[in-house]
Each structure stands twice: as structure tokens, then as C-alpha cells.
């Protein structure tokens, strides 16, 4: 991969991959490390990609794998509410509340929410990515929506 293509891939993907990593780590610093690992693997990957879409899908898979390895490690610390306020910007208080509700979800449910709503993947695609079955994905999605509704007191679109 050329340096230019690498830079373009980073610019195109860093935000969404960070969102995925954060859903697993619940910790800003560790999410940054996983993000870095993912892009380092991209830089070192020596086989050609078909197109940008191929690169983006590859990155998502690698990021997920990095996240799965991460959750096996001990001594994980979550980013606190105060830290969230300092680290990220939100257009309005509601967005802040939604983000914190997401961060309160269990990792696997949070990840499914990110992949479904942010990545716009179908439950089947998510199941393939996470190497699980579709019914498991649907269950996690349903549970996440119920919890978010309890916390935020609003309806979620049924997809």
C-alpha cells in the first residue's frame, strides 16, 4: 500500500473505527491504542486491495479482532463521565446523554448498536463479522434497545 492510500484510508475510517474500539474498551486511551494497532496492521499488510470498500471492510474486521483480544486482558478501566466531557464535543445535551447511555451498555451490546446504526450493517452482516449467529445479534440488539429506552425514555426505530 502506498503512503498516500494509507493516509486516505486513515482519514476515511478513523472516526468509525474509533467508535467501534470505544464500544469494546469503554476507555478512550485503550481505544486509541487499538485504533493505532489496526492501522499499523494496514500499513504492514502486503497483499493488494481491490478498492476502497475492500480496505474499509478489512479494517473493520481487523479492528473487531483487536477489540476481541483486548477484552481478554485484565485491569480494564472505563472512561468516567467527567473525562467524557473533556475528551469529546457534543452538539447538544441530548447527544451527550445518548452517548453516555451507550457507554453504559455491556460491550457486546454496545458494539452491535455501533455496527447496526453507525456502520449501517444488517444483522446478518454483523453476525458474519462477529463470527456468531444472526439470532444472537438480534437478541443483543433488542436488549440494547430496551436498556437505552429505559435510560433515555424514548422509542427506538424498529429496523
Amino acid at each position, binding site marked *: 500500500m502506498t*503512503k498516500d492510500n*494509507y*493516509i486516505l484510508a*486513515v482519514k476515511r475510517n*478513523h*472516526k468509525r473505527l*474509533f*467508535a467501534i474500539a*470505544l464500544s469494546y474498551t469503554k476507555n*478512550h486511551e*485503550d*481505544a*486509541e*491504542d487499538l*485504533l*493505532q*494497532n489496526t*492501522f*499499523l*496492521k494496514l*500499513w*504492514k499488510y502486503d497483499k493488494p486491495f481491490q478498492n476502497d470498500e475492500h480496505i474499509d471492510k478489512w479494517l473493520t474486521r481487523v479492528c473487531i479482532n483487536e477489540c476481541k483480544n483486548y477484552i481478554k*486482558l*485484565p*485491569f480494564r*478501566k472505563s472512561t468516567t463521565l467527567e473525562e467524557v466531557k473533556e*475528551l*469529546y*464535543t*457534543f*452538539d447538544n445535551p441530548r*447527544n451527550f446523554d*445518548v*452517548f453516555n447511555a*451507550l457507554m453504559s451498555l455491556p460491550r457486546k451490546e454496545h458494539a452491535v448498536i455501533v455496527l447496526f*446504526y*453507525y456502520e*449501517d450493517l444488517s444483522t446478518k452482516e454483523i453476525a458474519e463479522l462477529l463470527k456468531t449467529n444472526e439470532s444472537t445479534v438480534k437478541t443483543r440488539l433488542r436488549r440494547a434497545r430496551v436498556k*437505552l429506552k429505559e435510560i433515555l425514555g*424514548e422509542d*427506538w*426505530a424498529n429496523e
Partner: protein
Amino acid sequence: MNKEEFVSVMSGVQSSDETLERIMNMTTPKKHFRVRKSLVVVLAIIMILALGGVSANAATDGAVAEYISNTVKVLVNGKETDSEITTDENGSKHIKINGDLQTNGENEIVIKNDKDGTEQIVHYEIQSNDKETAWSLDGNTYVVANNFQEPTTVAQK
């Protein structure tokens, strides 16, 4: 909640500019690395001779290789650790050590030569937790960062 609203929520959530810059610059290998606090990194350190009695020309392939071939004792952040010296098929020397390296600030690594009693102190800030990656320092000696071990002790926050 739909995709548009979700994207709006996450629009301000991203890694720091510093991290992004580091990612962009990863195409250029660097001599200093930072390691995640929860991982043990096996690090190979090559000492550049700057001790008393050693001439400026000592930092050559031959002198470094000879120094490395002597018995060494390694301390990482004050704790003695095992070390292994290997030579690859090209004659390049690697010193691999095990130690808990810290991400907050620099790590002090002391390499003591048991044969002549000299010691070399190196301060390292290490940033890599990918698999083995080697950077050549003088064409015959290499720094190798390699993490494949779960930590046996982890500093509590």
C-alpha cells in the same frame, strides 16, 4: 434512533489529534516507542558504546557485537530481568529482555556487563504493541519490539 441521529451523537467522538498524527506518521519507523501499560514487551536493546576507555570508533559493528557477546545483566525500571542474546544467520545481534515497561514517562533500562563491571543506562519511551518489528541502528544490530506475553504483574491504577 436512526443512522442520522446516531452519526450526530458520535460526530464529536474521536481520537485525539496527537494520536491521529501518530497514526499518519506510522509509515516512518521511529527509534522511540511507547508500550501499552497492560502489556509486557520483549525488547531488544542495542547499546551504543560511550563508556570510558572506548574510542569514538568503538561504535562500529565489530565493537558492538563484541560487547553484546559478553555476559550482561539487565534491569528494567529497577527490577532485574532475564535476557537472551541471539545471533541471526546474518550475524546480527539481538538482545531480548522481559520486563514491565511503563507508558507514563520514560523507562530506565540498565545493562550491566558482568565481565568488566561497566554499565550502560538507556532511557526508552516505547510505543508499539504489534508483533515483531525491527529497526536497524547500525546495519548489524537491531532493536526489536515484540509482544506476545500476557503480563504477569500489572501496575494498579
